[in-house]
Each structure stands twice: as C-alpha cells, then as structure tokens.
C-alpha cells in the first residue's frame, strides 16, 4: 500500500492502467450516453489543478445521495495512515454507468485518481477508480471535461 499525490500532469502519462483499459469498454459505453452534473459546482469545492492519485484500502463505502462516497486508508513512508474521502457521482448517474452497490467493499484495494478539495482536507473528487478486479471505471465526476463526467447544465 502506498500513496502517490500527483501535482503535475506528468502522472497522467503513466500507462500503468493500460492493461485494464480495454476491459472497461462497457463502462465507457454507458458513460458516453449519460448527461451529468453534480448538485453543486465542481469548482466551488475541488481544484482540477491539484490532481491526486492514490492506492490504498477501502475503509468504508457510502452508497447514498447526493453523492456516493468511499474512504481509503493510505499509509505513507513513515507509517502514518491518512483516511481519504472520495466523492463519486450521484447514484442515478453511477447506475447508468454500470456501478452497483456492490462495486466497492471495505477491504478492497483500489487506485483512485481525482482532484483534491480546495480547503486542503483529505477530500477529493474521484474521476476514475481501478476496482479490485482490474476494471478501471469512471467516477461520475462533475469535473468539466473529465472522462465520463461533467456536463449538461440547464
């Protein structure tokens, strides 16, 4: 278990997840057809210029609205454990993408990419998650331009 907080776009060049990508075509399909928007402005809470990438152990999953959330314990080099709070999309959005209540469980090891909260807390908006079975799925993020996220504001 390790943590990696990426503050530059360099990390996006990493092809670590490439073997899983093709397995997620089905999720990509469903995502493509979903108009999305959070019930709050993304920019009011998160900073897209502060990306985060973390691998850790899920400690809790909240399958609730207005956003599903999951919490990830991450241990740093000194052994200190930080519990990260990741926001996913709303349940209707996630269901359309293929998520179910059983997609994540406490104890799962996941790798999450997203954007950090502007207030400096260990809170982030998840743009993608590598599930324990290797599938890399979108998080229903409201981040403008995020794959499988953002969008129709009327």
């Amino acid at each position, binding site marked *: 278990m390790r943590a990696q907080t990426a503050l530059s776009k360099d990390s996006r060049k990493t092809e670590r997840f490439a073997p899983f990508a093709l397995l997620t075509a089905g999720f990509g399909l469903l995502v493509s057809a979903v108009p999305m928007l959070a*019930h709050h402005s993304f920019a009011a809470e998160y900073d897209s210029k502060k990306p985060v990438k973390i691998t850790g152990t899920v400690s809790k999953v909240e399958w609730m609205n207005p956003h599903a959330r999951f919490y990830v314990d991450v241990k740093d080099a000194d052994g200190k454990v930080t519990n990260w709070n990741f926001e996913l999309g709303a*349940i209707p959005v996630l*269901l359309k993408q293929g998520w179910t209540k059983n997609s994540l469980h406490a104890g799962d090891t996941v790798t999450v990419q997203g954007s950090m909260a502007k207030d400096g807390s260990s809170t982030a908006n998840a743009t993608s998650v590598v599930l324990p079975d290797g599938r890399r799925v979108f998080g229903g993020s409201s981040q403008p331009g995020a*794959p499988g996220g953002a969008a129709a504001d009327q």
Partner: protein
Amino acid sequence: MRKHLALSAGTAAVALFVSLALTPSPARSQDPLNPSFSAAQAKGKAGGKGALPPGPPGPTPRLPDGKPDLTGIWNGQRTVSQDGPYLQPWAQKLLEQRAVSNYADDFEARCLPGGPPRAAPYHTSLVSTPKLVLMLFEGNTHMFRQFFVDGTNHPKDLKPSWYGDSRAHWDGDTLVVDTIGFNDKSWIDMPGHPHTSQMHLTERFSRPNLGTLNIDITIDDPGAYTKPWIQKRSTTLETNMEMTEYVCNENNQDPVHLDGAHK
C-alpha cells in the same frame, strides 16, 4: 410496446458498444487512460452540450382524447438554442458575482430546489392525464410540478413558492404551461441567471415522436430582464432505467467544503 422499446434500446446499446470499443487511436489520444472515450464525446461533455442518448423510434403516443401523451422518463435536458438573456444591470452584476464565487451559494448544493425552469441533471418523469400532467423530479429534492389542464385559472393572492402555480392548455399538439407565483430564490439555470418574484414562465411542451420531447421556454421577468428571453430545450426518452430514489440530505457533505465556507 414495452418489449419493443427494450429491444430497440438494447440493439442501440450493442451498436454503440461496438463502435466505441473500436474507437481508432487518434480519438484515444484525448484521454490515454480511457481508450473507449472518444474525442467528440469529450468535447461535447466539456461544453455542457454533449449528445443526448438517442430516443427510441416511433410515432407520438396519444391519450384517449387524441392529445399527445407526454408520459415517460426523460433524460436531462439540453439547451439547443437561446434568444437572450437581456439582463438588467443588477442581474448582470449578480450573474458575474456568482461566476466569480464558483457558484458556491447555489441553493441546490444545500439540497434546496433548483427551479423551474432550471432542470435537474437527472431524470424527469412526466405523467399525462387529460386534466392533469405531473412532472416528477428524480434528483435533488424529489419535487413535483402540477400542470392543471382543466380550464382553471391561477388562484388569486398566490404565496410565492419555489415552483409557482402552473395552468396549462393545448395549442394543437403543444401543451402550453403558464406559471406564476414564484419566489426570488431559485436560479433559472446552472450558470446562475437570477429572477424575481415577477417571473412569468411559459413552457411549450411538444413530443414530435416517441423518443423526443421539446420544451420552448419563455422567461418574462420585468424585474430582472429588459425583455422576455427564450430557451429552446430538448431531451430524449429513457428506456433502460426507472426513476430511482434520491434523498439529497442523506449524506450531503459538500457545503462545508464549498468556496467561502473554509476561508
């Protein structure tokens, strides 16, 4: 009919799956970690006008009285064209302030209503009967609107409310919904166009075929705009999902993290 819809939706899904799975490499370069996400889709979503999922083919369904039956679960709306807005100076200033603050004071973020005419990004269900059309919102506050099509007029001395009072009539195959009695709290849309309690909303609902719903909205608010302005919206019929439960206050952790809350 229901079986037919399911088959049509399934066929479309399979076709889309195949097309996306075979997305050529130039499109992949838009997002190297997600090869199934095409450049066109990325562009559309980023712009807030991404393509709607296609609606099923078929003729306009009709009620026993011959009027179009608007019943169905509809996807999030898209604005396809707009004339306006013609903002008064104070409204322009407020709109700009909302943008600068990243829309942190949005009522929706506190699980309060968003409109109308603001449309939730989730499903909206319409239930048509000859004398009453109901609009049910899946997201945010699970609210409803009632369009009375029974020849009655707006009650006098309406108390200002989030959704106002709606009376409707048919103009040919178009349901014309007239709404007044608003408070001044909600936003007209996500960008934060304001309105006052003088807002008079006219929405024209039409269903040109089974899978399409068009809504032409005229916003007449002499308290905030110099003249009426129009948004033309469209959406498509959802064929793969039922409405889901959405209890906004069950786990709304966002307000304490929004701009201003932590400064």
